[in-house]
């Protein structure tokens, strides 16, 4: 489903050339749950952003369901992000002045969906993350775990094929982190979504079917859980 071929991302920082991705190749099947493990600056977040079309490659290509997304223009990239992928961030990135429902509606707003339908879809997504009783709450009225669940609902509201999570438990206590990982695992199984999670946490990586250890922009080890 996702094919990354000879992907390199090079940028310069203070006159020094940094290789965030170094000729990396990878295939991820549909419905896979992949954890990317590695230290800071290893290139795991860059890999996630490249798959999510938030970042572009210096060379190589990323093919998702047969389409090379690395060559797309802004409008097509935005459409891809809107319809094919969902992002979950470490800091949740919810809009403080909006309610949970309004935050979840955000991707639908950019997809020309009428207000009434948007609301119905947002409420459904919130029920999937067990937040039906918090739909009118603003982020400041929710716990960290609840905020991340709102962010997950936002990521999956448009039924994407791929869920990309960048350290989703990084700002949560261990119990909330466990719950979030369970929820993501659940979505992966129930909704048959392909999930890529960036994490530092070895324990949380165990929720994945496949663990990729990244160092210096290369895959150091690719281990699959035995079925």
């Amino acid at each position, binding site marked *: 489903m996702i094919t990354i071929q000879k992907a390199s991302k090079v940028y310069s920082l203070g006159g020094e050339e940094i290789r965030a991705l170094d000729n990396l190749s990878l295939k991820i099947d549909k419905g896979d749950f992949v954890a990317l493990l590695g230290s800071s600056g290893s290139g795991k977040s860059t890999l996630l952003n490249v798959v999510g079309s938030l970042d572009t490659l210096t060379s190589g290509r990323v093919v998702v369901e047969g389409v090379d997304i690395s060559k797309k223009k802004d409008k097509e990239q935005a459409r891809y992000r809107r319809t094919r992928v969902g*992002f979950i961030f470490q800091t949740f990135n919810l809009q403080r002045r909006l309610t949970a429902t309004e935050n979840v509606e955000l991707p639908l707003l*950019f997809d020309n969906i009428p207000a009434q339908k948007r609301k119905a879809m947002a409420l459904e997504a919130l029920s999937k993350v067990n937040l039906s009783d918090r739909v009118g709450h603003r982020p400041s009225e929710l716990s960290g775990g609840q905020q991340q669940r709102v962010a997950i609902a936002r990521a999956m509201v448009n039924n994407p094929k791929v869920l990309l999570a960048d350290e989703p438990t990084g700002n949560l206590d261990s119990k909330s982190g466990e719950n979030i990982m369970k929820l993501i695992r659940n979505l992966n199984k129930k909704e048959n979504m392909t999930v890529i999670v960036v994490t530092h946490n070895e324990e949380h990586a165990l929720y994945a079917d496949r663990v990729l250890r990244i160092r210096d922009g290369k895959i150091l080890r690719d281990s699959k859980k035995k079925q």
Partner: protein
Amino acid sequence: MRVDDVLKVSFGNLFRQKARTALTIVSMMIGAFLISIMLSVGNGLKQFMISQVTMFADTRTIGVQKQFDFGSFGFSLGGGVEKYTEPSDALEVDVRPLDEGTSSDTSGMPDYLSGAVLRNNDLEKISKINHVADAAFEKYISPDYIRLDDAERDKLLVTLYGLPVEIRENASFSVVDKNELRNKDAVVLSDGYAESWGLDRELLLGKTVWIQVAQTGEPSGLGSVQQGGMSAGHGDVEIKEFPFKIAGFVEKSLLSQMGYITPEAADEIGAYIAGKSIEELITDEKEFEIIVIVDSDENVDAVDRAIEKAGYQSMTYDESIGQIGVVFDFISAALSSFGAIAMLVASIGIANTLLMAIYERTREIGVMKAVGATRTVIGALFTAEAAWLGILGGSVGLLVSWLIGRFVNWILHDGISIGSLTILKGVLADYPTFDISVFNIQIIILVLGVTTSVAVVAGLYPAWRASRLDPIVALRHD
């Protein structure tokens, strides 16, 4: 993203930093206020001038002149009615009824004006144009004074204007006796005469007034247009008083010392001044303007073209209004430029407000991009936010200027007084239909259009910057 969602979201964004938004709107409001108040005052003055100029005009009238530069006539505008000063060597007044015209030698027209003179053959030529219902010379006469029978009342200066009855009937009267109006000895006076004589206009209707002219031997045209009193110290020049009956008063106007009489009466007085018989005067008529009345409104343009084709200069009612409009629109535009400067400053404020908003919302813009917003949508959201600032600033500016305009109109009409103590006199009390500030739909559309356009232009750069933000950088922003 749907247009209604863009408008809704961008409007909601205005309330994130309420104080900053309010200040930006106030700065835009100042520009809008200045522009709209200037335009409304220009419009008020324009309407007033049009009402003055068209006081006796009919949409079917066309003024015809020779193709010649006249310069300007010497009417005193807005000065009110002036008193007549007795000449030091006042003569006995020879009082005769209107029909007793006398004749004597003629004198010539000033040479420099001869090119502008219209004669009987011109009148005949113009009268023969298709659809011309009536054509007559426009006649101005400048007598010495006008007085009531009552010796207690002042003798006042006056300029007489001979007008066909069709035109006089359509005038803006404050009081009128329509039956009297058609009589040959009827005179319609400016509103100020009743006031100067200290009598009610209604009481003066039908009263006899006496108008004194001197036999200067000059033609009745421009030679007699000099202000009354010109013959103070007539020497041995013969003078005569003509009796008229007051048929009405026109609304207070800037032409404050006018008397409107019939063309026939004007001919009689003109003949007396020139020292000719009426027949002689009519045979050798020399005037500067012919008033044409067209049979119907639809034919005005055709007649206008035919007159110009015949080699004359003509001005229809619509053209006169149009000319006044152009002049006052230009004045309004010039005055509005102060507002435009204020608006330019406000536009910098809008750009600054939006640039600050981008800084504050950088992370949010990153999220919007991550969940599928295109550059166009991000740009549209900020451009719409700028437009809202313009619309709100413009609306508040219009509202404030409208309220202040209304207040000023009220003060100028009614003045300010506490009990019997007058603090400020209503300077426009005599002009009940004249408002200094007059709003219309064009002003509202123009001001909102300008404020919105200026705001949108000011918002283009911030919108472009927001749309170009790198989502990765934006998402890392603190």
